[in-house]
């Protein structure tokens, strides 16, 4: 390198200036990329959530976020991204299909995050989607790859509490554990039961069910194709796995 002889002070200044300029340009590049990609990233997340809600509530075509506030379920304002919320799913005719409840808990290796559907009375589980898990590939990941296990959650009584059985459970509230992945299966059941304990008492009686858009909530942040500048791929009504 062609280093001219500079006084020590100037030399130090040159080093600091180089790093400062590098940092400045780097910051500009990062902020620019962030702003460019943010809408797309948020749309992806909303889309993933939407798909999951429609998957665990078969037959639903609209959804609305409901938050638990002051002892009752209320339609959320767009800004209220509270953790204490569930999603109501409505069919094409506007009838309430059920509630999609997000829940999480410890799995075999890491937290399992899932979403499950309850019928309007909260009496049955009607669907299950695992949103995030790091269960052992080939064993624990059967909680979402094993179609028999997933099918158990399409019609499962919530009263008495869901129970995991080894072998073959016959009762409507029993789930067969996955061979070789008992801990992961038990974790799913435990997470569902915990979710039920919190949310089932909070659900309104079916005849008082919140109607779609009744509360005139600034429609739940589910941009259909409008704000995305492109058609959204059709979401299958049946959660076909």
């Amino acid at each position, binding site marked *: 390198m062609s280093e001219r002889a500079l006084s020590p002070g100037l030399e130090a200044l*040159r080093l600091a200036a180089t*790093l400062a300029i*590098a940092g400045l340009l*780097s910051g500009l590049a*990062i902020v620019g*990329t962030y702003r460019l*990609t943010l809408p*797309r990233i948020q749309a992806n997340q909303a889309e993933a959530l939407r798909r999951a809600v429609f998957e665990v509530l078969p037959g639903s075509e609209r959804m609305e976020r409901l938050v638990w506030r002051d002892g009752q379920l209320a339609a959320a304002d767009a800004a209220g991204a509270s953790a204490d919320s569930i999603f109501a799913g409505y069919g094409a005719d506007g009838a309430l299909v059920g509630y999609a409840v997000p829940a999480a808990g410890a799995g075999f290796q890491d937290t399992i995050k899932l979403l499950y559907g309850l019928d309007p009375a909260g009496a049955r589980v009607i669907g299950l989607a695992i949103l995030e898990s790091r269960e052992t*590939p080939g*064993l624990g990941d059967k909680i979402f790859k094993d179609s028999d296990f997933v099918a158990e959650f399409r019609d499962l009584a919530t009263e008495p509490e869901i129970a995991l059985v080894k072998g073959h459970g016959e009762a409507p509230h029993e789930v067969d554990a996955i061979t070789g992945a008992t801990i992961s299966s038990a974790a799913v059941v435990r997470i569902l039961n915990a979710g039920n304990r919190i949310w089932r008492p909070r659900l309104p009686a079916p005849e008082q069910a919140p109607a779609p858009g009744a509360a005139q909530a600034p429609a739940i942040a589910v941009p259909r194709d409008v704000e995305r500048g492109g058609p959204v791929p059709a979401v299958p009504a049946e959660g076909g796995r």
Partner: protein
Amino acid sequence: MNGRDAGFRGEIAKGLFAENPVFVKALGLCPALAVTNSAINGLAMGLATTFVLFMSSLLVSALRRLIPSQVRISTYIVVIATFVTVADFSLQALAPAIHREMGAFIALIVVNCLILGRAEAFASRHPVPAALGDALGMGAGFAGALILIGGVREVLGSGALFGFALFGPRFEPWVVMILPPGGFLVVGVLLLLFARRAAARERAAAAEERR
């Protein structure tokens, strides 16, 4: 690296085999082991790394006379980290499923010794075209290695390649191959094959000389 200037094409070619970053230089082994449980993940990590390598080689080589040598490493890291962040956001926007699979390993491209190594050993000492050739070659060699490792592990561990099932539902997958130990096994066997090939060449060259 060894003084000879092979030009743009030669720089690309050498990265693929003779100086393959993973199998010959053993650089960047961490992502090569960690994210290669399927061919598609290997491909995505390979492309992301190639992008970062290409862009940082371009900048480092173009600015090599402006960056004072005392702060060169910190400047390289800033450059590399910037492009890694750009790649991270872009992947999150364009391929969220792959981004979720790779998790922290995208951000960890910053400390992939392959990238800083090429910036320091090559890009900072060569003109832009040679540096870009080197980056492309090394990136392709790295991506190829990751796809190879990921492909072998996916075929054995899940009976599929690029997500397409190969053997039908009665196939009993060799699960350990997509778990961390499988990465070590596959990388070990591939390193052995590459080393054997190099040794055979050397013997052939020596025999040639004796004649």
